[in-house]
């Protein structure tokens, strides 16, 4: 090893970044706590008079949130932490954007245009409580009718029409690429130029809403802009090939998956750093 007796600025900055570009992920209860605090922070100052029905509704709404949040924290306490590696519980995602259906979590995506809904009788699904503070403010879960979409496996996508027509929900961890799906992953490489190639091993730590987040564990090709331990989003698009990481014919990842990623950097005009667009994702273990 070269003794860094007089490292250049670049060498010094590199050493600093390597030493400090790590941070513990947020604890499991961080965002649920924030969610509840946001709900409790809903302004009620203008409704000073209890006699006012709107004031009463507001106070009752806050009370319901308190109960919901208290219940959440009790559940969290009983379940204990597992370092953030557990699969996302239905209810741990974004409120209003998450649907629980047949014990699975789905992420919602509004789409334009009609969806061909199956004529079969709809089943019931739940919009989880603590996550649903935005619209109704009722602080309790909401039951919705879940429709199968004609020609689409309901384990991948379903639709609900109760509150937002043509809202399609995609099961967490699935990345439908075929444009025939009502929702399919977008083209992520538009308006940017290819920058460089990467090949690295990574672990899936979060499935996110639009893309999974991974932690880079080992770099094989080109470390520029990527560091071991970096937490990055993978911009899966229609060109991404999945190897051993498919389910029901669709690209699929779960939290904890160890994957080998071949990717290219895609730098948009003015961007400080490129997006990582995986051309291939190979499942190593899960």
């Amino acid at each position, binding site marked *: 090893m070269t003794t860094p007796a007089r490292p250049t600025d670049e060498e010094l900055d590199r050493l*600093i970044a390597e030493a400090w570009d*790590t941070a513990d992920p947020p604890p499991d209860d*961080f965002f649920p706590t924030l969610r509840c605090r946001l709900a409790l922070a809903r302004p009620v100052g203008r409704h000073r008079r209890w006699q006012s029905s709107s004031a009463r509704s507001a106070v009752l709404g806050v009370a319901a949130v308190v109960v919901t949040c208290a219940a959440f924290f009790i559940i969290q306490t009983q379940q204990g932490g597992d370092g953030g590696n557990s699969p996302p519980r239905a209810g741990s995602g974004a409120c209003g954007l998450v649907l629980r259906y047949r014990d699975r979590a789905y992420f919602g995506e509004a789409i334009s245009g009609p969806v061909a809904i199956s004529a079969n009788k709809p089943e019931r699904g739940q919009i989880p409580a603590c996550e649903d503070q935005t619209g109704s403010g009722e602080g309790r879960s909401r039951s919705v009718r879940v429709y199968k979409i004609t020609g689409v496996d309901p384990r991948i996508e379903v639709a609900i029409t109760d509150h937002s027509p043509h809202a399609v929900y995609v099961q967490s961890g699935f990345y439908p690429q075929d444009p025939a799906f009502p929702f399919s992953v977008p083209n992520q490489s538009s308006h940017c130029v290819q920058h460089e190639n990467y090949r690295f091993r990574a672990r899936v730590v979060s499935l996110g809403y639009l893309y999974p987040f991974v932690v880079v564990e080992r770099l094989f090709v080109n470390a520029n802009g990527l560091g071991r331990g*970096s937490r990055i989003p993978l911009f899966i698009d229609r060109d991404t090939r999945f190897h051993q990481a498919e389910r029901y014919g669709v690209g699929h990842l779960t939290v904890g998956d160890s994957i080998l990623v071949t990717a290219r950097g895609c730098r948009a005009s003015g961007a400080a750093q490129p997006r*990582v667009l995986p051309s291939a994702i190979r499942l190593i273990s899960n």
Partner: protein
Amino acid sequence: MQAAKIPMSESEPEPIGYPAVVRAATAGDHAAFEQLMRLHDHSLRLLARRMVGNSANDVLQDSYLKIFAKLPAFRPDEGSLRVWLHRVVYRSCLDELRRRRRTPDPVPADTIADAVADPTLTIDLADAMRNALERLSPERRTVVVLVAVLGFDYRDASEVLGVPEGTVASRMSSARRQLREALTNEFEE
């Protein structure tokens, strides 16, 4: 070996879907706001961790609530959202430091040790860098995090800190000099 840098989600332009998330969050959508903060959390957490140590979670909770309250007033044409978010967290960290009326907690040794597990680095260098970083003043430490770790340029760092660009450059230069001297001393002893 290349520098480890911030997640690419922090760069401009943002991922597809990002503008819609920002719009919804600005309109008061809690779900979109959470999504937005999850996207920036890693970078903001790094900054808070280096400034206030183990109080980072508490400071971030308060910061995110402030951000939610102030987001509707944010004007995209007046600057980058990323810079603005970091500025809010930075000021919250300052408030925390003022409240404590003492210097921030030292960076835990295990954080550094994990980060420098690269085989091309020896433990001596890792130790030397860790010790040197821990001895930086809070002002220099913050500039180092913004510039060397999070990849801010001097202009954006100056906006986060609310100081002139020249001050950022000066602090960065002083920090590098201090770190360089510390490393030199370490290896000459």
